[in-house]
């Protein structure tokens, strides 16, 4: 492998990782703070992509698509939370898995009824449709660089919000001790709704960023959901830092595994890595609780 190719594949791995992080961040927050396994996270990813593709098709503006679809996905998340999921915070993980499993089926079929079976086109934004030379011999698609930038910005933003703001303090308080947080005057229900909406917005954003490079179709959320779950547990449930590091790790392992290993092993590499890491550190790389 030449240096140029090594750099390009490294960028590919990093970009895939960052894309996974966008998904895993919301998942790990909801999982860690509300102790809720939310399998509909993949559905929100899909809804974000479909909404953006529709806005884009009607207006031709990618920015407008972002501006409309991200809040709309957050709203969809809020509705989902208020209508069904809220009453499952106190239930067992199994019940959560089952109800969200049922919701996946329902949301998929509803999406199919609205948008049909045929994959929906979603073009690249004009400014980002080219490629940039970043090293002699390495040209890289601008849009993928944009994904990289967005992902890193989100990571930075999450860090600032969670660690340095009042809202972040509430979130952390709500996560560690609900009763205590309520006593301190934090509206835990509101905080949970906010966190859920934020997670949904991130999933939607991930879907929108994935739209131009992949097929916008029913069922597009589930493969990504599995990878995001892998990232979440490798990083340690509830840890944003862990999610970022695990996502990049998975992105790089997957990219180089696919290129360097025979196909059968290449498909397995992520799962072998997860099994090895959990055997070594049963609570993930950055355990949050206890």
């Amino acid at each position, binding site marked *: 492998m030449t240096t140029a190719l090594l750099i390009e594949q490294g960028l590919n791995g990093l970009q895939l990782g960052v894309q996974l992080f966008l998904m895993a961040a919301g998942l790990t927050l909801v999982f860690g703070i509300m102790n809720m396994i939310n399998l509909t996270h993949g559905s929100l990813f899909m809804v974000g992509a479909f909404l953006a593709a529709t806005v884009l098709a009607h207006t031709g503006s990618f920015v407008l698509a972002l501006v409309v679809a991200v809040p709309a996905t957050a709203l969809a998340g809020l509705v989902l939370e208020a209508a069904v999921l809220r009453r499952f915070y106190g239930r067992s993980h199994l019940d959560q898995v089952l109800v969200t499993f049922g919701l996946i089926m329902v949301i998929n079929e509803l999406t199919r009824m609205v948008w049909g*079976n045929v994959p929906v086109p979603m073009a690249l934004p004009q400014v980002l*449709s080219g490629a940039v030379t970043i090293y002699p011999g390495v040209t890289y698609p601008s849009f993928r660089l944009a994904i990289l930038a967005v992902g890193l910005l989100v990571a930075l933003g999450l860090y600032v919000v969670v660690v340095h703001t009042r809202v972040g303090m509430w979130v952390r308080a709500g996560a560690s001790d609900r009763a205590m947080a309520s006593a301190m005057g934090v509206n835990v229900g509101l905080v949970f709704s906010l966190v859920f909406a934020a997670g949904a917005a991130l999933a939607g954003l991930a879907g929108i960023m994935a739209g131009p490079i992949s097929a916008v179709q029913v069922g597009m959320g589930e493969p990504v959901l599995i990878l995001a779950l892998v990232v979440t547990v490798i990083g340690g449930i509830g840890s944003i830092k862990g999610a970022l590091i695990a996502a990049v790790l998975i992105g790089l392992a997957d990219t180089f595994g696919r*290129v360097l290993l025979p196909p059968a092993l290449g498909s397995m590499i992520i799962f072998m890595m997860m099994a090895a890491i959990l055997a070594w550190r049963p609570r993930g790389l950055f355990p949050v609780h206890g």
Partner: protein
Amino acid sequence: MTMIASRAATAALVVMCGVAALALPHAARADEPIKIGFLSTFSGPQGQLGQELFDAFNLGLKSTGGTLGGRKVELIQGDDQAKPDVGRQVADKMIESDHVQILTGIVFSNVMLAAAKPTLDAGAFVFSINAGPSQYAGKLCHPHYFNESFQNDMLAEAMGIYLRENSVKRVYLMAPNYPAGKDFLAGLKRTYKGELAGEVYTAFGQLDYAAEIAQLRAADPGAVFFFYPGGMGINFVKQYAQAGLMDKVRLYGPSFSLDQTILPGIGDAAVGSFASTFWTEDFDNAASKKFVADFEAAYGRLPSTYASAAYDGARILDAALKAIGGRIEDKDAFQKALESVKFDSIRGHFKFNTNHYPIMDSYLSEVIKDAKGRPTLKRLELIKADQADSYAAECAMK
């Protein structure tokens, strides 16, 4: 104790109700409608393909007045969820519970392999409008098994012929790591015979191809031949174009990777790539023009190559049954009628080979934008007239 008993009774009830709901009394008579089991993939990410086949098959039925050989048709729909064992179970149900006489609609080869055996064992016909596994073209060929669409390798072999005859050097091969993917690449290699710049298999259902595309670029090939059906095709072609390779290294594939199941999802990015095919939207025979017009009117989209075969499928059944006065119950007669079927194919030349797979013309086509700005396939040149598959020699019918 009462509770225990009623618990068990309710449990039994739940099971029995479910089971009983499947039961339908029956009796087969010749004046009854012909029963066709349409077993296809309707759910999950591949659900689009089943729907495409179903829509086109129904349109074909409509074009024959809703009858086959003058008899009414009862179409029983079933979802295999792209899982072989589910396909086998639903095929069993169609045979034993619905008493279908023909099983059709299957998309995937592995589902076909699982579902065809019990169907044929039960004496019913398998009439494939899509899945074309090599096993049933060769060693497993069966008097009651017909495939009117294609054998997996055929379009790849056609593309191999074109690339060889046009001296395209150092072709780079890519396909998903599953049986049809391997069939397609094997088919290309069978006729291309030139030096390969690389041969890469990716995971089935893979979303991101950036790493493979980087390797591809580094290998500096003369052309790329790829087989990615469905969503994988959309992902790959979009990402290939975004990597700036579309005008540097030409993209060749079978039409399943570049037809109307995929092109709308890609948008303009695929324009300028080439597909081998047995039918395109611009075929100028009357039957084909009617098909495209009717399909667009009925479903508001252009038909794909999948649809073209499904549409022809209904019309083949009609023509064969017409020849024997609709007597599908006479299995030998029906088999002979199918073997020598004459009908007005939208694909132009069509006849069944000795192994009950098609002999037809293959063409090269290019992805262009049509008058309405939609990406479509435009027929360019004939690659091979009366192309047959490569397994017919292994078939000793009966």
